[in-house]
């Protein structure tokens, strides 16, 4: 579904990615772990069209999409929940969700999607008329994911959904992520700092170190890997 090859991305003179290659197959949850500044968010931004790659290729369903503006990729089945959630704090939960269906044609279809997303996140249904800014951090994360799911994406990019949330909430969010993958069949590329949780949820994983892929394997294997355990799981 997604194939990234030899991706190089730079912000001006700062080269953030030095040739990253990775892949996500239909129906998989793939996680990307790594330290601060490793280039995880940059990888997602290059895939979703927020930054143009300097070199390399990004292919979605076999078609090259590197350099295609982000808004066009939404219609091709891609959704990106960015770092920091970026919900519309001044708009209601319902308006946030309806904007998520910007590319969806037809009122009936939008209503059906809304119903489905509210079934995935019942907490949002309780707060449907509330403004986004008044939600708790966990609810805002649910809203950000729910909003992305309104377009019924086939590939969902999630950037640190656990950021700033209490452990209990983080587990709830990750359960939802697994459920979306299972029930909606959505392929998920998950960027996480919480390596243990990410690897427990994902099928496969990549470890990014200073803009390069250092390790790639099945998630259970990475969980057992001494290198991962030492660097990312706090074990010795």
């Amino acid at each position, binding site marked *: 579904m997604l194939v990234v090859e030899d991706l190089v991305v730079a912000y001006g003179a700062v080269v953030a990615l030095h040739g990253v290659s990775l892949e996500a197959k239909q129906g998989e949850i793939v996680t990307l772990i790594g330290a601060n500044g490793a280039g995880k968010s940059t990888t997602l931004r290059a895939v979703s069209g927020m930054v143009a790659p300097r070199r390399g290729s990004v292919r979605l369903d076999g078609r090259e999409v590197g350099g295609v503006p982000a*808004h066009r990729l*939404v219609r091709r089945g891609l959704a990106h929940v*960015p770092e920091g959630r970026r919900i519309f704090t001044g708009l209601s939960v319902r308006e946030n969700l309806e*904007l998520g269906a910007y590319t969806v044609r037809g009122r009936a279809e939008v209503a059906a999607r809304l119903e489905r997303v509210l079934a995935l996140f019942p907490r949002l249904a309780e707060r449907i008329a509330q403004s986004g800014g008044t939600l708790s951090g966990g609810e805002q994360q649910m809203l950000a994911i729910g909003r992305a799911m309104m377009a019924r994406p086939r590939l969902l990019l999630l950037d640190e959904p656990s950021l700033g949330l209490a452990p209990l909430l983080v587990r709830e969010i990750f359960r939802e992520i697994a459920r979306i993958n299972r029930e909606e069949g959505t392929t998920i590329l998950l960027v996480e700092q919480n390596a243990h949780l990410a690897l427990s949820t994902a099928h496969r994983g990549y470890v990014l170190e200073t803009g390069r892929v250092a390790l790639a394997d099945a998630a259970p294997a990475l969980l057992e890997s001494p290198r991962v355990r030492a660097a990312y799981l706090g074990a010795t």
Partner: protein
Amino acid sequence: MWTLAAEFQFSWLWVAEVLVGVALYAMLAASLNLVTGFGGMFSLGHHGFFAVGAYAAGWMASLAASVEPGSAAGWAVFAASAVFAVAASAAAGLLVGLPCLRLRGDYLAIATLAFGEIVRIVIQNTPALGGSLELNVPRLVMRPRGLAEVESFRELFLVVGVAALAVVLVVIRNIVRSAHGRAVVSVREDEIASELLGVPTTRYKVRAFVLGAAFAGLAGWYYAHYTGSIAPANFDMLVGIKILLIVVLGGLGSLTGTVLAAAVLVGLERLLQSGVFGEDLKRWMQVEYALILILVMLLRPHGLLGRFELGDLFRRRARGGRAA
């Protein structure tokens, strides 16, 4: 206590003049509100588009100096100059907008500010536009069957101004309320999030910017024909600040607020100017803008109406009453 100056009369002529000013500034501020209030783009050069429209219309009219005022040909040139003014300022908007709208907000403000100054300097150095002196705009229209009196001309322009303002307001309202209106709002709220949801943010911003410029051009057309002579000094930064002040005063994203604020500001200005409160207060004119801006910031940081329209306020009250 101030006593009303004895010589001042609230004549209909004076009131009509004030209302023409209100219509003009309401048009300018509504067009800027589309850009800044709804589109979230900070533009400091709106007076530049106003100037482009005024000079486009004025120049076209000056070519038709021999046309009989009020004749069919006069009306035709009058109408054609509106189209020309709108097209010219829209083109200028596209020229400024396309490269600049990718810039961050503060760069856009500086770029538009520079644009306003460039327009003025170009006019000053173009003899065909009168240079730094005045460009005479011959009178093209009169009330049908009417006399060419000041009063009848002013009344005619009051009607023209209200009609033009109505067009501007209706078009902007329809855009904001349209199916894509929410998308416009979302771009203002968070451009990156909007882009990631599939909203073509740059296209929306360019559209809003160009349309705002076009409407400022329409205001320029109106102004040029009304005053009958225009000069670069009529389009300096103070005009831009005044437009911005009206937008802020009325509330970013509130059209009725804009009209209300234009009425308050222009009305107050003309009252002070008239000397009706005596010569002492005439001098207050100079601090009026600063004073109003400070008061707004302190009392109503979101403007008179915030993001709401006048109608919303009544509706909210009614809803609150029912709930109670």
